[in-house]
C-alpha cells in the first residue's frame, strides 16, 4: 500500500458538463476502493443530476445534467467529498468492501485448446503451465475499471511471477469468455473482439448481457472482488445455460450466493 494522505487530488473540466477528479497516487487496490466509494457518495448526494460516472485506476470522470444550475459548485463539492473519502481511506489502510462484498468466483477452463498463450506465458515467466494456472487461480483480484468493451473487467493485480506483456501484434479476434493477462492485469473478454492480451483460459460464464436489467447487465462492478477456479472440459461443456450468472431473471439471491460459495470451496 503506497497511499499517503499527502497525495493530492486534481479537478479538471473537459466540456460543458464533464469533469474528472484525478488522484495523484500510483494505482492500487486500495485506491480503487476509495474511488468506487467516491462515485457512490457523489451519486447519493446529487442523484439524477449525475448522468454518468466512470471510475478508473486513479481517476473518476463525472458527467452531470447540463441543466444543473451551479456546475462549478457541484464539482467543487464533489472534489471535497473525494478528498474526505481519500483521507479516511488512506489513513485507515483498509479496503472498505473487503468485509462487505462477496467475492465472485469465476470458473475457468485452463486448457491449451482454449488457451493459445498459456505455453507462451509459461515460457516467458520460466514456469510450467500448471504453475501459471495455480498462480492465476490462487489470488483474489479487484475490478479496478470496466471498459475497452462493454463489461470488460480490468482486474488488478496478478502475481508478479506471471505478469506478461501484451502480444506484439493484437489478434483480430478473441472469443467471448477468453481470460487474459496483460502486464499485471488480468481480464475476461465479454464478447468476441480484437485483442492483445495473453489468453490463458476461457470461462463459460456470460459476463455482459444487455438483455438483463441494467443493474445486472455486467457481472462486474468496480471494486468487486473476483477469484478464478479451474474446471474440467466436461464441466465447461456442460455448464448450465441457466447458471445464475447466465440468466439472472427471476433468480433468487440464494442461487447467486450458491455460485459464489461454489467457487469458494
Amino acid at each position, binding site marked *: 500500500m503506497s497511499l499517503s494522505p499527502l497525495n493530492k487530488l486534481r479537478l479538471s473540466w*473537459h466540456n460543458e*458538463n464533464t469533469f474528472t477528479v484525478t488522484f495523484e497516487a*500510483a494505482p492500487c487496490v486500495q485506491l480503487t476502493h476509495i474511488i468506487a466509494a467516491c462515485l457512490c457518495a457523489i451519486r447519493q448526494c446529487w442523484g439524477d443530476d449525475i*448522468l454518468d*460516472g466512470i471510475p*478508473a485506476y486513479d481517476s473518476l*470522470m463525472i458527467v452531470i445534467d447540463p441543466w444543473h444550475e451551479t456546475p462549478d459548485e457541484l464539482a467543487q463539492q464533489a472534489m471535497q467529498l473525494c478528498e474526505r473519502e481519500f483521507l479516511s481511506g488512506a489513513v485507515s489502510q483498509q479496503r472498505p468492501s473487503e468485509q462487505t462484498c462477496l467475492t465472485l468466483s469465476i470458473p475457468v477452463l485452463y486448457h491449451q485448446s482454449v488457451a493459445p498463450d498459456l505455453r507462451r506465458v509459461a515460457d516467458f515467466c520460466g514456469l510450467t503451465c500448471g504453475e501459471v494456472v495455480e498462480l492465476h487461480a490462487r489470488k483474489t483480484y479487484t475490478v479496478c475499471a*470496466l471498459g475497452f*468493451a462493454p463489461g470488460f473487467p480490468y482486474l488488478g493485480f496478478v502475481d508478479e511471477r506471471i505478469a506478461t506483456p501484451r502480444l506484439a501484434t493484437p489478434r483480430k479476434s478473441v472469443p467471448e469468455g477468453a481470460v487474459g493477462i496483460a502486464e499485471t492485469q488480468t481480464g475476461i473478454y465479454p464478447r468476441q473482439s480484437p485483442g492483445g492480451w495473453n489468453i490463458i483460459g476461457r470461462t463459460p460464464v456470460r459476463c455482459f448481457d444487455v438483455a438483463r436489467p441494467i443493474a445486472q447487465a455486467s457481472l462486474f462492478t468496480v471494486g468487486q472482488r473476483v477469484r478464478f477456479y479451474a474446471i474440467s472440459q466436461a464441466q465447461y461443456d456442460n455448464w448450465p445455460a441457466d447458471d445464475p450468472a447466465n440468466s439472472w431473471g427471476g433468480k433468487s439471491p440464494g442461487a447467486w450466493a450458491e455460485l459464489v460459495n461454489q467457487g469458494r470451496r
Partner: protein
Amino acid sequence: MSRFGLLRVLQARGKLTTQDLGRKGWLHLGLCESGAADELAFLWANHLLGNACDAPALEITLGQVSLEFTLATTAVLTGAEVAGQLNDAPVTSGQSFRVAAGDVLRLSIPRQGVVNYLSVQGGFCITKVCGSASICEREKIGPFDGAPLNAGDCVGYRAPAEHTPLRRRAERWCMNHSGENIPLLVPIVESVAAAPALHNLLNQRFRVSTETNRMGCRLQGDALNVDALAYQHRASAGVPYGAIQLPPDGQPIVLLKDRQTMGGYPIIACLSRWGAGRLAQCRPGEAVTFCAISIAQARQQWRDWYGFFSNSASARCAKYH
C-alpha cells in the same frame, strides 16, 4: 386505432442508423453513449415536426439512399447540404414536407457535410435498447441487432391523427458546415506537458483523415508534441465527448459519440458539445481549424439552444434524456 406505416429501405449505399440523444447512465459499464452525431441537426428535425426533442430519427451518412414510405405523413430532412428528391420533386433541407403512401425519397451524396437526419411526425417507432434507440455499430448494440440498416429493412411510424403545419427553419439558423473555427475548451488546469501542443493545436490548419467515423475523427497536420513523460505510467481513464487525444505520433484524434469509454492517451483539450457536432459534419480531406472559447460561453450556448428547442410544442427536454 392509429394506423402504422413503414419506411422501407430500397437502397442504402451510404450508412443508415437510427439515433436519438444516446444512452445515459451506461458509461460505467463500458457501454458507449452513441446518439446523433450532429445533435443540433437532430434537434432541428424534431423541432420542425413538433416532436419530442429526443424522438428517434434516421441518421444518414453520406447520402445515397432510397427510402419508400408506405403511409402518408409529414417528414423533414436536416443536416448536410444534400440534393434530395421526393419522387421527382426536390426536397429542401430544413423544410418539412408532406409524404403520400408509396412516395420514394432519394438522396445523392451531400455537397457539403456528412450526416443528414430524416424524421417523421411523431418520430419513428423503435424498440429501445439500454434506454436508447441508437444503433452502435462498433459495439453491435441497439435496435436492429446494433447493425446499420440495409436494403429491405423497415422502420415503423404511426399515422398522425392530424398533420402538423409545414415549417421551415429560418435563414438565420442555417447551419455552418465548414470546419473553420470549431469551438474548443482549453483545460482550466493546464498541464505543463500539454502547453506547446495546445498552442500548435490552435494555430494550424488540419485535414480530416479518411479514417474517420462515428467513433472518432482523426486529424492530420504538423505533429503536436507532448512531453514524453505524459505517456509513461499513465493509467487508462474515462474519455469525455469531444476529447482531443494525442497518441505518440502527434496526430490528434477527436472522440465522438461512439467513442470507447476509457482510453490511455493524454487528452490535451476538449471540443464543446456543439463543436464536436460540427466536426462530425466535416468530410475526409476537409480543412479544420479550432478557436478557444470559455466553458462559460460553451454552457451558455448549450442552454440557449436547448432552451430554444424546449420552447417548442414538444415536451421540454428538462432532463437531458
